[in-house]
């Protein structure tokens, strides 16, 4: 296990007691905590450098613009985009996917056309497609998953035809932790010329992502799942596609020239960034990238993988625990049930012992329906977790079982 134990002390929120116990935070897949470096970068910006970006000649405006655009550069390098024009700053994964649905798909789709997704997707990678299908008369089709929670690749491939105008697939399932076989999926799709969007909300926080090597066309992710602020996110897209797409929203900054006869849109990436952006949040996002890279994505991956193996082994040994999601390749996310205790009751019983887990459908109701469950209890790990956290979880589960016995 890569030794990154010292990182835990970088996170102020983890240094507290909850319900009389030191906090064990196992809910990073919903939203991660922030290192002091990120919190301070945001506060320092507000105390020293804030002004609106892009259109000011005064010093603060210039400083704000440099910091904001500097964050874009960091994000560009993080995912190895071909150019900074390809990094559209959004309010999060959800907005990134809606942008593609409305700006790329809506003008393109008609009756008979299809959008293909998998049964594993988060609501943010389902509902935007449902909306655009309803708007255009196209159909949403869905590739099934097996009992381990893996996409059935052959069935997905069988659904790929020239009627499919876009394939939307997650990098990592937030509900089950499944790492999808993106290379196989994208290779098959690309043979048929199908445009591919990857929902990377749970990908970027856990592994090195190289969008050019992946070969997809769009990749969406959120700042708040990778130690950055809420209200920030990225849509990466191939420049050629982005160039051809009409703007998503209208407003300040996304135009070169406005008149009532003729409005000229700005160049990429600004064409897709209307209005005052989340300046402070994006600067914090940039600081989060710095933090991730200072720890090292490889170290983070190794640490999380080792800890996940430890957690799975311990969970499996608890009487009455049933693991939900047993994919052969899994990120550091694990769903489970304990006897017939409803996940919400279990969540409360664990919270009471200072252990924070997420319970419910994890915005992936189809996955829950597939397994015939109202929801699961989910423990998700980040670089700041350790084996003590897992031991505390296990002890709390034992106690919960007793209460409900």
């Amino acid at each position, binding site marked *: 296990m890569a030794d990154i134990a010292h990182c835990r002390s970088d996170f102020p929120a983890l240094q507290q007691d909850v319900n009389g116990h030191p906090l064990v935070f196992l809910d990073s897949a919903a939203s991660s905590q922030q290192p002091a470096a990120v919190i301070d970068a945001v506060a320092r910006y507000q105390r020293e450098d804030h002004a609106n970006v892009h259109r000011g000649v005064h010093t603060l405006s210039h400083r704000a613009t440099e910091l904001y655009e500097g964050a874009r550069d960091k994000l560009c390098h993080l995912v190895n985009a071909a150019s900074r024009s390809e990094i559209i700053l959004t309010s999060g994964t959800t907005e990134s996917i809606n942008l593609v649905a409305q700006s790329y798909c809506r003008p393109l789709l008609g009756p008979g056309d299809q959008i293909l997704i998998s049964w594993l997707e988060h609501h943010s990678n389902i509902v935007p497609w449902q909306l655009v299908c309803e708007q255009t008369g196209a159909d949403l089709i869905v590739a099934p998953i097996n009992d381990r929670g893996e996409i059935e690749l052959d069935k997905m491939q069988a659904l790929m035809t020239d009627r499919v105008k876009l394939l939307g697939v997650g990098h990592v399932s937030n509900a089950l932790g499944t790492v999808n076989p993106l290379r196989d999926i994208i290779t098959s799709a690309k043979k048929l010329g199908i445009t591919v969007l990857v929902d990377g909300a749970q990908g970027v926080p856990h592994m090195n992502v190289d969008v050019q090597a992946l070969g997809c066309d769009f990749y969406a992710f959120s700042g708040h799942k990778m130690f950055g602020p809420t209200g920030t996110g990225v849509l990466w897209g191939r420049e050629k596609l982005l160039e051809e797409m009409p703007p998503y929203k209208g407003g300040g900054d996304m135009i070169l020239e406005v008149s009532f006869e003729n409005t000229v849109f700005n160049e990429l990436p600004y064409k897709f960034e209307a209005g005052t952006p989340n300046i402070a949040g994006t600067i914090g996002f940039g600081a989060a990238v710095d933090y991730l890279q200072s720890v090292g994505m490889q170290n983070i991956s190794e640490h999380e993988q080792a800890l996940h193996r430890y957690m799975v082994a311990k969970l499996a040994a608890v009487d009455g625990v049933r693991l939900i999601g047993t994919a052969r390749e899994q990120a550091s996310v694990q769903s489970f049930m304990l006897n017939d205790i409803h996940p*919400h*009751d279990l969540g*409360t019983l664990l919270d009471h012992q200072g252990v924070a887990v997420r319970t419910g459908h994890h915005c992936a109701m189809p996955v829950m329906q597939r397994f015939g469950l*109202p929801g699961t209890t989910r423990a998700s790990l980040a670089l700041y977790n350790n084996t003590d956290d897992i031991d*505390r979880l296990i002890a709390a589960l034992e106690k919960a079982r007793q*209460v409900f016995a």
Partner: protein
Amino acid sequence: MNNLNNNDELQDLYRDLILDHAHNPRNFGRPDEATHTAEGINPLCGDKLHLYLTIDSDNRIAAAAFEGSGCAISMASASLLTETVKNLPVADADACFVAVTKRLTIRSSDSAAIANVDFKELRALDGVRRYPSRVKCATLAWHALHAAIQHPQSTATTE
């Protein structure tokens, strides 16, 4: 790691009466006939239940039943509800809705305001007051009751 105080609180939430009603819900199932029904959805928990009332010509609740699935708190609360409102005049049942939701959401110092309702077994729900995120579970069935009384066929949510 655990202190007594904490265990007490937890046992206060999951009292034996609650666990009993959760594991063996009373009046569970869909009756052949019902004059008023409502669906209750708690998107937080994924709790979902149907409440079935038979209101007779005297405006009295002749029968109450429910069906659904959810956490122990919501199931126990629904089960307790069906026992509580049976044979009550509709107006009194609706007063119970007001009283229970108030009792679980307002600060204890205000509780005098609702002292005139006889809570009996419903006191078992009191433990939920310390868990604000679970109050919705406990009040779901009561919202459905109110909705069913207002509109013979309706949906209630707790958001």
